[in-house]
């Protein structure tokens, strides 16, 4: 048996994927979710759909670097089956923010779609045991320029500026932020 971590597994595609993996007896499913109450509800529903499924919850807030480090530490401390799969699914848009936003420990909105997953993967890489697969879920919004490019055009600039919310990235409309974060994530996955 191997473990698979699914970020944002309490709802939507993440939950559907968790159900799919839970139906396979060869996998232990780790629901990596920000909201513990929603995660508990999702785990309960998952166990109703798949009685006997091997699944557990680990709290993870991709907007907090501290939470990401804690998650990696907790995963290592638990005696779970070796990590064989990572599904980077979590994401969202905060429409209220006017520009790049920083959380209490310095990470910004790019954490949600790109940087958080990037850090998480790097922290877990030593715990991955072959055969391993890492799946990064991204949107095609930054590619379809004829339609969506007018609404959420990604901005190409130094990644340091994106990380610190300066220069080209100092002020961005929400959908452009979304498209840019997705673009970074896709470029990272492709490389």
């Amino acid at each position, binding site marked *: 048996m191997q473990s*698979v971590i699914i970020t944002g597994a309490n709802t*939507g*595609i993440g*939950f*559907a*994927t*968790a*159900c*799919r*993996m839970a139906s*396979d007896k*060869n*996998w232990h499913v780790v629901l990596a979710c*920000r909201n513990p109450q929603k995660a508990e509800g999702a785990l309960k529903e998952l166990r109703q759909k798949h009685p006997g499924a091997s699944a557990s919850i680990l709290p993870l*807030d991709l*907007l*907090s670097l501290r*939470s990401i480090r804690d998650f990696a530490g907790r995963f290592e401390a638990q005696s779970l089956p070796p990590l*064989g*799969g990572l*599904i980077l*699914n979590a994401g*969202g*848009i*905060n*429409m*209220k*923010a*006017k*520009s790049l*936003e*920083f*959380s*209490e420990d310095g*990470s910004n909105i790019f*954490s949600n779609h790109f940087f958080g997953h990037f850090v998480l993967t790097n922290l877990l890489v030593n715990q991955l045991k072959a*055969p391993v*697969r890492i*799946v990064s*879920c*991204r*949107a*095609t*919004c930054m590619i*379809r320029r004829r*339609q*969506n490019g007018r609404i959420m055009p990604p901005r190409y600039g130094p990644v340091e500026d994106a990380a610190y*919310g300066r220069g080209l990235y100092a002020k961005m409309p929400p959908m452009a932020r979304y498209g840019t974060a997705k673009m970074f994530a*896709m470029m990272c*996955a*492709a*490389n």
Partner: protein
Amino acid sequence: MVTRGGADNPGRQGMPYLLRAIMMSAAFVRFMGSHLATEEEAGQALGRLITDPNFAGSAGGTLTALKKFLLR
């Protein structure tokens, strides 16, 4: 600079109601063209990316769920 994040971050629920309603409307989804499968179909597809031996060599690639899983 806006300070947000952590446990109090509203995530998707933090979006204004009207905007959420627009984004979830069938017309908007058709226009954006991104939601081409149901959540269950997408979940099945993602699960297969992990478990199906046919995708063992798909490293570094960008896959389109619709073409790879639903239309074949």
